[in-house]
């Protein structure tokens, strides 16, 4: 093959970043601001990275995890809920990004790895993307769709 993860990844610098204490509504705003193009078309990176107080990447949220928050907000229209579920729901009404984010320490490949390795990571983790690291530092993301261009060779 010879194509490395670094050759197809999208640089981490192209993704929006939010603090871990931001709220879900703000995360959705940031993603739409960053990824809806000038003509309101969706550019499609679909993730937002989360940094801590020391400006280190600690996690990321995806469109799916933000939509999941809606499901959590309404766990079944018209269904009976016990009082402790209702109380917990009210208490957690204001969800923060850190409640839903995935850690950057999981599901990653090295920048020098072959793209087949990246494809395998996406399949095994059942995600739409895999993180790319170089010397332990997060440098980019490979989406499943970026590998579509290589699928004829991989299959």
């Amino acid at each position: 093959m010879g194509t490395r993860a670094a050759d197809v990844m999208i640089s981490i610098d192209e993704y929006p970043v939010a603090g871990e204490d931001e709220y879900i509504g703000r995360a959705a705003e940031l993603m739409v601001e960053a990824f809806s193009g000038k003509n309101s078309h969706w550019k499609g990176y679909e993730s937002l990275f989360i940094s801590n107080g020391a400006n280190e990447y600690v996690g990321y949220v995806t469109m799916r995890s933000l939509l999941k928050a809606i499901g959590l907000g309404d766990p079944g229209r018209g269904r009976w809920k016990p009082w402790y579920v209702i109380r917990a729901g009210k208490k957690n009404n204001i969800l923060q990004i850190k409640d839903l984010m995935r850690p950057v320490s999981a599901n990653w490949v090295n920048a020098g790895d072959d793209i087949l390795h990246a494809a395998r990571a996406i399949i095994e983790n059942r995600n739409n993307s895999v993180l790319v690291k170089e010397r332990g530092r997060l440098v980019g993301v490979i989406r499943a769709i970026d590998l579509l261009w290589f699928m004829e060779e991989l299959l």
Partner: protein
Amino acid sequence: MPKNSEIDAYAIPLSEYPVIGRDESVYTGIKMLKEALHKDGPWQGKRLLMVRDRNGEPTGLLTVKCIFNALGLRLLDEDPAFKEECFSWHYIHEMRGNARVTVREIMRPLGAVSIRRHSSISAAARLFARHRVNHLPVTDGGKATGILDLGQLFYKYHLSGGFRQATGTTPHDLPLLVKLLGKFAST
């Protein structure tokens, strides 16, 4: 919630999706998916193909994830542990060696995961999360009428202000919240 709290308002009609026959090869499927992706501008096109049966009826979806599932099968084929312990390796090997893999073998059947057109946004959100899919067929009376796309749902739901209603306030609302709480305390 606004009127468009039902997913029907967010679905894209089936007729807008490119079509592929179920007996076409996976390679044809990959080629068509690539073309579909860039049809309306770079990365702006559709991310799935509608699979039709021999009578022209919609029968499944061919997504990027389906292509990855095919690759997963290929990687399994090369796994020595799988070859050694699993009799089904013989059949997979035969399938790859003697016949081409068709779209029908890797597509997601329309009935596998779907949602009714009058379901709520939150029901759709739960299905997207539970099944880890990016597209949901929308059905009306058991028949697929459209596709709910995760990205489009996210974008339109955000524009309608849905995230603020469903997941609580944002920091921008805090001054109002403080004001309201102050009013409540003074009564």
